[in-house]
Structure formats: structure tokens, C-alpha cells
């Protein structure tokens, strides 16, 4: 017995004690009927080979460890960015339990969202009654300013018509006639979470700008000088949007962040639970029609929303999750161009500080090879930053990346001498990445929490940047956008590099001559 009351052993120590290691050994030997160790070893080695990689890349149907989620997750992400808004997901209820858990594990915050709880009878007769009752319940219980409706795959497969259902619900009196219920169909079997973000964002703008599903006249655009900003699906939304507000503040311009979820996912612990906090007001959302231009930080998150906005007469600018010096330069120059305002001296100074930091540290990063995976725009922004650090983004993989993204990534590689040996992998998953890390090893891996399995199996040190991050805390509170954000990313990369060097040089009398005190 190793457990003791004075120093309680946690699972990570307890089960290493002999009473447990014996138990494991005995269980395996006597009862599990697992393959012999030699065979396991043989297959483990085979799975590292080029031959295995070839079979792995020949997969046509099976997906293993994908780096993407489904549309409805992005729908919820977008909807909670509006003031007093509750996302209402029409379909099976288990989905909503999953989205709420997923976001809460990443942000360490509550995520409020309801379901219409459709079951077998709804599968047969349609979910109209669930919608009618559900909207009434949500409206009465949670007193939202707006209910944003999206769908799960169940509702999509049976073909429920949201527009008609919401109309009927209003006719039946579940919610007032004039109450705002924007909607978007978000089938899980099309695209990914970034598509869901796009559809809901477009659905909400369409609702306010184009006459609330035919119930009021469409708004007429009265152009003003303000700028709209769309962040896209972003695990760093809390830190990033605050940084963006600071930047806009320094410019001294009118702006609207459409879908500002930075407060609702960062509420204080002060005795009060805020189900709603911050967010883009409904008035701002309607008025955003009048803006001069809209900047999207993530082109591939706004493939439908941006053209929709452009059709309404605004100039639109699509960026690719800019990280680092050149990316931020472009963002600021676009803001400056659109508004006619000069780039604030304060920001120029911050730029210089980021360049200074890069110059201080570049020797450690220069020539290092990286594998990156994540959402298409994030991959682009990270790769662009690595190139300007003199590193090589050797493998860049986005499960939800398509042909347009592939082309764009290739153009980026072609623009830099450090991109010469880099390759882009659209539509691939982390089991593909595993093969790549064995057959064409890199020095570091950048990805979300699931990258830790790749780190364990291939020994490639993981730098956690992406979504979700479940096993490290509070990273989402830091921006990765702006020069300040670039500095954060630089430091995260450097910290992991130095940790790796230290871990590789710490054996006394063997490797510790390189265990340097100054690096």
C-alpha cells in the first residue's frame, strides 16, 4: 500500500507503484489476450515506414484524428458574440451538450446554449413542435435579447425548414412577432466548424439588413466612415478581440466587431454568474450595414459572409489570420487605407519592439523545421510568421482546407526561400501527419492539444497553438494578433525550443556541458 494521507498520491504517481504495475502485468498476461510484445513492436516500427505512409495516404474513406469539428460548433461560436443572445440548436440534444462541453474545456468558462431536443417522433413527424415549445421556453426562462437558431445534422437530414418553423412559432405565440430570431442551416455533413461560423454570421447579418425574413422592409444603406471587423472562428478570441479593440482605439476610428464573444468567454469570478456579457448589440449589428468596409481576419471563415457584405455595397478585405510583422503590417495598412488615418506612432513603436525581439532570438529559430496543423487561416498566419523568422514550415496541414487554400499556401511558400521544401496538405488528418513526422521529421510541431499524441509517438516537441487547447490553461486570454500577439507567439515558440534544448542536455557528465545558463 503506497497511498498515504499526508502526501496523497495522484493517479500519475499512484499507478506507478509496484502493487499496480504488478496488477497491470498480471492482467495483461492472464486475461487480455493481447498480441505478443514482439508483434506489437514489429507493427509499431512498421507504422513508421514510408511503406506504411503510402498505405496511409491511400486512404479514401477512413478519417483518423481529424483536425476539424462540425458546422454547428462554429454556429454556436458566432451566435454567443451578440448581446444577450442564446444559440438555439434545432435537432438532437446531445449535440448541444457536446458543444457546451467543448467550449467550456477550452475557455474554462460556461457556455450557454439550448437544444430543441428532437427525438424519434420528431424524426418521423418533423421538429416543428419542438421549435414552437422550445422557443417559448427559452424566451421565458433565459430572457434573451435574441435567439439565434442553427441546426444539427438530424434536422437537416429530415429537411426541417427553419424559416417556416420560426414563422409558425411566432404565429402560435411562442415568441413575439417582432422578436429577433435569425437563423442558419448548418448541416454537420458539409464543411466544418468554420463553415458554421460563416453561415451563422451571414444569417444574422441577413436577418438585420435584409428585412428580418420578409417581416419588415430591408434596411437602406447610409454609408458612414466606420469599419466592421470579423474575427472568424478563433480559439484566441478573448485576447485577440481585446487587442484589436486597443488597436482600433489607437487609430481613433469608429468600428464594430461583429460577433464579439470576448467578454462572454471571460467573465469575472465575483459572486455573479453572467449568462450574457458584452457582445455586439443588435443595433450595432443592424447599423454595421452602413460601414465603409469590413475586414475579415479569416478569409476561409467568411467565404459566404464577405461576398454577402460586398453585395450590400461595402468594400471587403480578407486576411488570413495575420501573425507577426508582415501580417500585422498588412492589417494596419489596410485599416489606414480604408479610414485615411495614419498608423499611430505607438503601434509603429510596437512594431519595432517585435522586430527587436525577433532580432534578439532569431539565431535559435533560423533554419528550424516545423510542422503546422489547424484551421486554414491559422495555418497560413503561422506559416507566414515562421517564414519571416527564417524557419521552414515543412508540413502544413488543414483537415478543413480545400483547393483554394492549398493554392494560397503554395504561393506563400513560393514567395520565400525558406518555403522551398515546404508542402501543403489539404483535407488530411493527424494520422497522415504522424506518418509525415516519421518519414520526414521536423524539429517542432505546432498544433492544438491533440498534437500531444503526435509529440508522444514521434518525439516532435509540440508548441500548443490552435483550438482546442484543453490541457494548458489561459492561453486564450493572450492575443496572437497585432505586434503584441506576434511577440506572444514568438515567446511560446522560444520557450518550447529552450525547454527542448535543456531537456536534451541535462545528463550529468554526459550531455550537461551544453546545459547553458545563457542562451
Amino acid at each position, binding site marked *: *500500500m503506497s497511498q498515504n494521507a499526508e502526501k496523497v498520491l495522484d493517479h500519475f504517481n499512484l499507478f506507478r507503484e509496484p502493487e499496480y504495475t504488478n496488477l497491470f502485468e498480471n492482467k495483461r498476461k492472464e486475461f487480455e489476450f493481447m498480441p505478443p510484445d514482439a508483434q506489437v513492436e514489429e507493427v509499431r516500427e512498421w507504422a513508421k515506414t514510408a511503406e506504411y505512409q503510402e*498505405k496511409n495516404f491511400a486512404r479514401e474513406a477512413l478519417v483518423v484524428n*481529424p483536425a476539424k469539428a462540425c458546422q454547428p460548433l462554429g454556429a454556436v461560436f458566432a451566435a454567443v458574440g451578440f448581446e444577450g443572445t442564446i444559440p438555439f440548436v434545432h435537432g438532437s440534444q446531445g449535440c448541444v451538450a457536446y*458543444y*457546451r*462541453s*467543448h467550449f467550456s474545456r477550452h475557455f474554462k468558462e460556461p457556455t450557454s446554449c439550448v437544444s430543441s431536443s*428532437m427525438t424519434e417522433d420528431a424524426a418521423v413527424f418533423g421538429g416543428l413542435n419542438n421549435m414552437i415549445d422550445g422557443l417559448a421556453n427559452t424566451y421565458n*426562462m433565459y430572457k434573451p435579447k435574441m435567439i439565434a437558431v442553427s441546426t*444539427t445534422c438530424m434536422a437537416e437530414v429530415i429537411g426541417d425548414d427553419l424559416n417556416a418553423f420560426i414563422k409558425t412559432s411566432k404565429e402560435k405565440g411562442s415568441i413575439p412577432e417582432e422578436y429577433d430570431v435569425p437563423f442558419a442551416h448548418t448541416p454537420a455533413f458539409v464543411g466544418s466548424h468554420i463553415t458554421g461560423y460563416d453561415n451563422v454570421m451571414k444569417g444574422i447579418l441577413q436577418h438585420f439588413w435584409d428585412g428580418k425574413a420578409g417581416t419588415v422592409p430591408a434596411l437602406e444603406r447610409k454609408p458612414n466612415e466606420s469599419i466592421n471587423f470579423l474575427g472568424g472562428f478563433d480559439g484566441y478570441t478573448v485576447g485577440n478581440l481585446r487587442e484589436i479593440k486597443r488597436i482600433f482605439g489607437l487609430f481613433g476610428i469608429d468600428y464594430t466587431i461583429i460577433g464579439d464573444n470576448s467578454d462572454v468567454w471571460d467573465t469575472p469570478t465575483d459572486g455573479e454568474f453572467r449568462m450574457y456579457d458584452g457582445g455586439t448589440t443588435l443595433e450595432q449589428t443592424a447599423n454595421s450595414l452602413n460601414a465603409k468596409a469590413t475586414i475579415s481576419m479569416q478569409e476561409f471563415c467568411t467565404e459566404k459572409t464577405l461576398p454577402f457584405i460586398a453585395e450590400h455595397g461595402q468594400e471587403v478585405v480578407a486576411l488570413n489570420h495575420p501573425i507577426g510583422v508582415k501580417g500585422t503590417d498588412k492589417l494596419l495598412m489596410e485599416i489606414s487605407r480604408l479610414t485615411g488615418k495614419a498608423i499611430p506612432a505607438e503601434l509603429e513603436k510596437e512594431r519595432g519592439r517585435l522586430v527587436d525581439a525577433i532580432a534578439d532570438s532569431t539565431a535559435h529559430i533560423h533554419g528550424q523545421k516545423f510542422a503546422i496543423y489547424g484551421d486554414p487561416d491559422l495555418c497560413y498566419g503561422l506559416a507566414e510568421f515562421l517564414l519571416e523568422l527564417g524557419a521552414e514550415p515543412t508540413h502544413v496541414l488543414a483537415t478543413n482546407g480545400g483547393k483554394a487554400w492549398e493554392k494560397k499556401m503554395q504561393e506563400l511558400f513560393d514567395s520565400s526561400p525558406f518555403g522551398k521544401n515546404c508542402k501543403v496538405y489539404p483535407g488530411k488528418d493527424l494520422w497522415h501527419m504522424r506518418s509525415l513526422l516519421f518519414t520526414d521529421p521536423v524539429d517542432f510541431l505546432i498544433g492544438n492539444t491533440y498534437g500531444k499524441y503526435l509529440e508522444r509517438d514521434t518525439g516532435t516537441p509540440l508548441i500548443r497553438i490552435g483550438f482546442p487547447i484543453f490541457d494548458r490553461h489561459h492561453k486564450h486570454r493572450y492575443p496572437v494578433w497585432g505586434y503584441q500577439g506576434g511577440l506572444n507567439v514568438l515567446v511560446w515558440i522560444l520557450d518550447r525550443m529552450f525547454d527542448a534544448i535543456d531537456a536534451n542536455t541535462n545528463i550529468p557528465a554526459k550531455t550537461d556541458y551544453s546545459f547553458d545558463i545563457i542562451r
Partner: protein
Amino acid sequence: MSLTVEQVKQRNKDLIKEVLEVYPDKTAKRRAKHLGTFEEGKPDCGVKSNIKSVPGVMTIRGCAYAGSKGVVWGPIKDMIHISHGPVGCGQYSWASRRNYYIGTTGIDTFVTMQFTSDFQEKDIVFGGDKKLEKIIDEIQELFPLNHGITVQSECPIGLIGDDIEAVSKKKNKEYNGHTIVPVRCEGFRGVSQSLGHHIANDAVRDWIFDKAGDKHPEFQTTPYDVAIIGDYNIGGDAWSSRILLEEMGLRVIAQWSGDGSLAELENTPKAKLNVLHCYRSMNYISRHLEEKYGVPWVEYNFFGPTKIAESLRTIANFFDDKIKEGAERVIAKYQPLMQAVIDKYRPRLEGKKVMLYVGGLRPRHVIGAYEDLGMEIVGTGYEFGHNDDYQRTTHYVKDGTLIYDDVTGFEFEKFVEAVQPDLVGSGIKEKYVFQKMGVPFRQMHSWDYSGPYHGYDGFAIFARDMDMAINNPVWGLTKAPWKSAA
């Protein structure tokens, strides 16, 4: 502010009335049946259960897929569980339940991996059976040491009329009897995770026992063979349970399903006794094993020393004196550790009030562990319990305990606000709500990334965790000093 039982009952009644006022009439009527107060002497808790959730209320429940893939099947380590349908379900349930296991992941074990058929629009339109066939072929090629495959249906499968049973049979033949199990756990079936457990149990019965027969005739049995049923090895729970059964002289031939292998499932009919922890999710297969193979089953509770000792003796009573003596020896061996834990933590936790809202067995099973620490359960409820759970709960709860079945986010907040417990034990979706309110909280699904909580070793961790939650300096910081004390 200690109230009499009668005052508590009156308060609960008023509280329930107040909460129901927010709902439209129809919903208030429906929800009223799920909220109540336990009355001493009654055969159940006076609430209805296992009924459809009301739309739009923020139920905490999940779905049948979560019950099958997430709970029952997912932990079987040497099988590959395909999340069959769109990508999301598998993604959100990927490795999040902390079902510990020993194995070389990706080679001979696969629990913390996400295998999905990633349905696209064309699969919905034309059906996914061909794709499933190809997926099985690709699994066989890339993961040759897998011992079997399960097909965990997501919502669309049942709606588009796919025949996953036919595909499974065909591929089973093609791969020389390789175990392939179709599971009809589409998320829209039933009212919660619970039907998913049942469907998963039935799939074991039909596709492991009935179809496969005895796959390990050489397996030698003893008179002391037992199987652990309904322990998912969250944070290692099944291990800190198994060790006690082994120490008392029993031989644990299978774990269902935490750290379990297919062979362990297959050999379970050879057990002399099935010991059942999570009654809710695995009573079905236990009953089947009794009816068909004559293996008796007994429920046990390994939370807290009182219940552990009681359970060890109950289990031992199925065996001879050697095992009975073994049980006493184990109880005596751990007694000093338990005393030390209680001596250390009870003074810090005595009289603290707890509200629970969990799934499976925990709304009742953990009560004894809290009571061992001098704590009191003032409210409890089941996410997906049935009436037989509420009947069993009567043995645990005190007169006047507030009961809430399938509680809504709104109700739970209001109840906690009014009752003001010292600790809430529930899930990740609830955790931050209550912490914002300044109420100490522990996740009682994932053990808040700690554990194990089962067995004697687990109780030490449980006690430490409850203490660190409640007696944490952070709760003294929630009010800014310049704000007047409320």
C-alpha cells in the same frame, strides 16, 4: 441557520413553486413532475424520470451515441470504434472521458483516437454503406492488430436507411470471423444517454456472445472468478477497485469496460459472480448473463470506507470462508489509512453541505463517501436515471433532500442560489457557472481531471480534492475589499 426537516421541506416546496413560475404553463406542468423532496419512508424519491427533456430549457443531458460510444464501448481498448456519420460527435467525445488503459495507442489499443467516417453530403444522399465497407478495409490494413471494430451510429445513419448490420456481417465473413459490431445508437433515439447504454449492452449480447460463441475454450477458470461490470476506469477507478478484489482472494477475469479488452468481454460468461458498479449503464448485460449463463450479479459501492467495507463483505458472502476472511483482512489493512484520511480531512469538512447533479450511479453512490467526511447531501438528481435509480436512492438520502430530475440550467442555478451549499458536484457545463457564483465545485464525471475516487486509494484523493475545493483561499477573494461586505 440550521433549519428543521419540516422547514427544509417547506423551503423546497416554495423554491420549486418559484422556479416553475418562469415557465409557460405546459412546461411548468411537465417540469413539476421532476422536482420534489424526498420523504422518509417512501419507496422512491417522488419524481418522474426517464422522460423526454423539454425543448429549449438547457437540459444537461446527452444522447444515445454518448451512452454507447462515449460510455460503454469507447473504453474497450483493443477494438476500433468508428463514429459513423459526420465528424462532430467523435470529435467532441475524443479522449474526453479519461478512460485510462494500458497499451500502445495506435498499434494494439485505440481508446484515445478518433475514427470517423466524416460523412459528406454525398454520403447522406447516396447512403454510407459502401463507405463503411471501405473504412473497414482500410482499418484492417492500417491497424492490423485491432481485435474488433464497432460501428457507432450517429443521427443520420438511422434516418437515411443504411444497413450497417449487413455490412458488418459481410465484413465479418470476409475477415474470417473478425468481430464487427453494428450499434444503433443514433443520437435521436430515446431521451438521454441511457438508451445508448441499453443499446450498447444489447449489441454485446447479440454480436459478442450470441454470434461469436466461446472464442477462448482454453481459458482456465477458478471458483473465485469475478468480472467488474460498469466501471469505466475514469482516472484509474477500476484499477483501485480491482486491487481490493484481488487482495481479498478473488480473480478478476474482466473489466467492463474501462481498460477492458474484447477477450475479457468474451470470457465473462465464465465468471462465478459479476460485481456491478454502475447499475444504470450495465444492469442489462448483468441480467442477461444471469439469465443465459447463470452468472449471478451483485451491486457494490466503492466510494468511501463505509460503503467499501459493506460491499467487500457483500461480495465475499457469495464465496467461501477463505474469501470472507480475505475481505476482513483487506478492510483491516486499509483501516489505518482510512482513519488517517478521516482524521486529517473530517475536521475541515464536518457539516459542509453538498448538492449533486450527475449521471449513472453517482447521485447516490458518492453520498456515503461525503458522509464519511462528515458532510451532508442536501440535494441530488440524475441526468438520465430511471425510477429504479430513484428507488435505490432512498437508501442513501435523508428526509427532506431536494430532488431534481433532468434539471435545467435555470433550475439548478436557482436551487443553488437558494440552498447555498458549500460544494456543488456536477459536470463541466455546470462547473464555471457555480464557480462564478463563488460556490466551490468539483466535476463528478471526470473527477475534475483527478482521481481515482474508487476504492481505498481513491478515497484519500477524494477527501483531499473535496477539501481543496471547499477550503480554498480563492473563495475569499471573490469580493473586492472596497465593496461593502454583503
